[in-house]
């Protein structure tokens, strides 16, 4: 494992042009270093996670009991909208990009990303975009209030004036994502160390390569749809207005053509992370590496032809409904393959339960559960009873929170020792895990029942038969929400103090990142490592 002839701390002496990072704020403003930029993305996404989480707590506070106690319905709609936008575009996606920045160059034996200066710009666009978006909360017209899916004409003809800021914020975030994807693709395709063939790359790199292509394909479509909105609102066009020959349903088609691949963009890197962690803590190679690659590619391809399962009640003709039902059901096959492969990795392994593994195992369990409800939703006639109810809310929160978010936390715990040189506090980490695990299930499991009982989405007040499960769900929300402060504490503590970490950190770890010292030097692999035959 250590005979890969890698460069380590010696980089600094051989490399004339750099004497370590600069000091002060200019380091962070002008950095082109993938580790710095990775850290920037991760801190930003943590801040956004707490912001989006605060919006969620406002929602759950109002929903604690029937009646309108705390907020006006219009503000409630702003909270649901902003919660979705901030979590999707500000927390989950930047976190995955941050992990990509930190880890991909090290995993493939490259010195940095292919386009380091564009990398800096990709990040710094985000704080601008989100400041603009969040500032709408303080404006008289209020923040966007039409749902994170912003259907027309509610988001065009009937939108508050601040919708234009929303559109520009989306443009900026999209530009950031597109540039980031180009960077990731160029890095993976062009900068792999000699001998690192595609089928030897860690699965995290594979899933990010595929995700980057997805992003490149669909973020421009999102840019297109918000541009059409902009035109409808300000320049008198009628893309989504029947009176001018347009169609509100066209909005939904174009949005979900972006929107469905988007949710796979939010989960494929998670699959990659879990595929790194489980083999390490099972002390056994990932089962079925090749089929994991093919399965991920199939999921990505299929994600383009299922979008209208978000629109089963819109009045599509029968043939269309059937097509989208069948294509959506098929996605269960490659997804199932991946789940079976993770379990087969653990089967007959030698398993230990450090915090990253706890998060990864609960990912497998709870994401799979979300997959089951997804399959139920795919059945179009049954979906007529689930659509736009809390059953859908429960489904996507299961795949996104104990899915994507847990995988991010797992990744942070897994790689923190490599980033900081210190082990995190295992006891506090375990406490954070268990509080989150319990909190999340109390929060989201009852929502399945609420949906089945008939509670619609996006309502600030509800009929009495929904009261009990709503109260339970809100209690779970506060438990889960406040537990995340523990996570912040653990991370900050680990940055500052902790037991010294070795290079390998974990007993069963494999991969180039574990051959460099902990903390990883500012520049790694300035000379490419040699890759022995047979890895993977």
């Amino acid at each position, binding site marked *: 494992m250590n005979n890969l002839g890698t460069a380590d701390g010696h980089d600094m002496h051989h490399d004339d042009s750099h004497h370590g990072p600069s000091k002060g704020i200019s380091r962070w403003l002008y950095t082109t270093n993938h580790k710095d930029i990775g850290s920037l993305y991760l801190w930003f996404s943590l801040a956004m996670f707490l912001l989006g989480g605060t919006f969620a707590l406002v929602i759950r506070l109002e929903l604690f009991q029937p009646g309108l106690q705390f907020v006006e319905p219009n503000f409630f709609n702003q909270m649901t909208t902003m919660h979705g936008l901030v979590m999707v575009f500000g927390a989950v996606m930047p976190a995955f990009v941050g992990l990509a920045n930190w880890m991909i160059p090290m995993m493939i034996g490259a010195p940095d990303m292919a386009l380091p200066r564009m990398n800096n710009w990709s990040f710094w666009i985000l704080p601008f975009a989100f400041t603009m978006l969040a500032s709408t909360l303080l404006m008289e017209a209020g923040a966007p209030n039409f749902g994170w899916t912003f259907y027309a004409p509610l988001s065009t003809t009937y939108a508050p004036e601040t919708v234009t800021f929303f559109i520009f914020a989306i443009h900026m975030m999209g530009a950031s994502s597109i540039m980031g994807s180009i960077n990731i693709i*160029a890095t993976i*395709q062009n900068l792999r160390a000699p001998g690192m063939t595609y089928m030897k790359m860690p699965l995290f790199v594979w899933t990010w390569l595929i995700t980057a292509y997805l992003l*490149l394909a669909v973020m*421009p479509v999102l840019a*297109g749809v918000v541009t059409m909105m902009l035109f409808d609102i300000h320049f008198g066009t009628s893309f989504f*207005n029947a009176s001018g020959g347009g169609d509100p349903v066209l909005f939904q*088609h174009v949005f979900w*053509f972006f929107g469905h691949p988007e949710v796979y963009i939010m989960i494929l890197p998670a699959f990659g992370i879990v595929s790194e962690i489980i083999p390490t803590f099972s002390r056994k190679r990932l089962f079925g590496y090749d089929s994991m690659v093919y399965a991920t590619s199939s999921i990505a391809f299929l994600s383009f032809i299922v979008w209208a399962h978000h629109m089963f009640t819109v009045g599509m003709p029968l043939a269309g409904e059937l097509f989208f039902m069948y294509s959506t059901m098929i996605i269960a096959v490659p997804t199932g393959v991946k789940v079976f492969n993770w379990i087969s990795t653990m089967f007959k392994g030698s398993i230990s339960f450090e915090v990253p593994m706890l998060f990864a195992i609960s990912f497998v369990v709870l994401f799979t559960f979300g997959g089951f409800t997804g399959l139920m939703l795919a059945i179009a006639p049954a979906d007529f009873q689930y659509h736009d109810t809390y059953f859908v809310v429960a489904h996507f929160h299961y795949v996104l929170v104990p899915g994507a978010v847990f995988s991010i936390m797992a990744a942070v715990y897994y790689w923190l020792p490599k980033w900081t040189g210190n082990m995190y506090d295992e006891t506090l980490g375990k406490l954070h895990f268990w509080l989150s695990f319990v909190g999340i299930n109390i929060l989201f499991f009852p929502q399945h029942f609420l949906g089945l009982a008939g509670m619609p989405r996006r309502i600030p007040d509800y009929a009495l038969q929904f009261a009990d499960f709503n109260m339970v769900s809100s209690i779970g929300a506060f438990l889960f929400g406040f537990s995340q402060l523990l996570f912040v504490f653990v991370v900050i503590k680990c940055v500052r103090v902790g037991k010294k970490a070795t290079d390998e950190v974990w007993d069963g770890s494999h991969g180039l990142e574990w051959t460099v010292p902990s903390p990883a030097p500012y520049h790694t692999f300035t000379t490419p490592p*040699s890759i022995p035959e047979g890895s993977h």
Partner: protein
Amino acid sequence: MSEQVKQESQTPQNNSRLVLKLLLGAVGMFGFGFALVPLYDVFCDITGLNGKTGGRYSYEAVEVEVDEERLVTVQFRAMNNANMSWQFEPVESQVQVHPGELTEVMFYARNPSSSTIVGQAVPSVSPFRAADYLHKTECFCFSQQTLMAGEDINMPLLFFIDQDIPEDVTKLTLSYTLFDVTANFQQAASL
């Protein structure tokens, strides 16, 4: 080892080539998003999906056979979008026609407000699969209608049902939604 095998893929030119290709791909997808707009319309036109009826249809009396055996009920609905203040209603709420038979019905509209308003009627057919078989040769929905304050009008609709309409369609509903589009036609409104 690291010197000799400098992979071709690591050259700066390769980077720029790839980046250019990816950038063009992104731009292409942006264009594709916009192309979805006419594509969607074409798809709906070809398949008659979404209840959209086609544009003006030319009726050749010689070529069309009237099917005396069948009767199809055609219901008419007229409604306003929320901002539209006109009185708008079909003179007859339903007719029974033979497929192939050219029929005329009238729709009444009146502008009760104190300013000139331009209206646009948008048709929709239920069930969707019947939309392909409803042909309009003359319809007030083909263009905007301008009514001055207090003015009223009887607007004709000339249509026929295609003889090939499936056997099991015995009733269909043609609904019009009337929109206020004055803002798009400021010049016309000021005349």
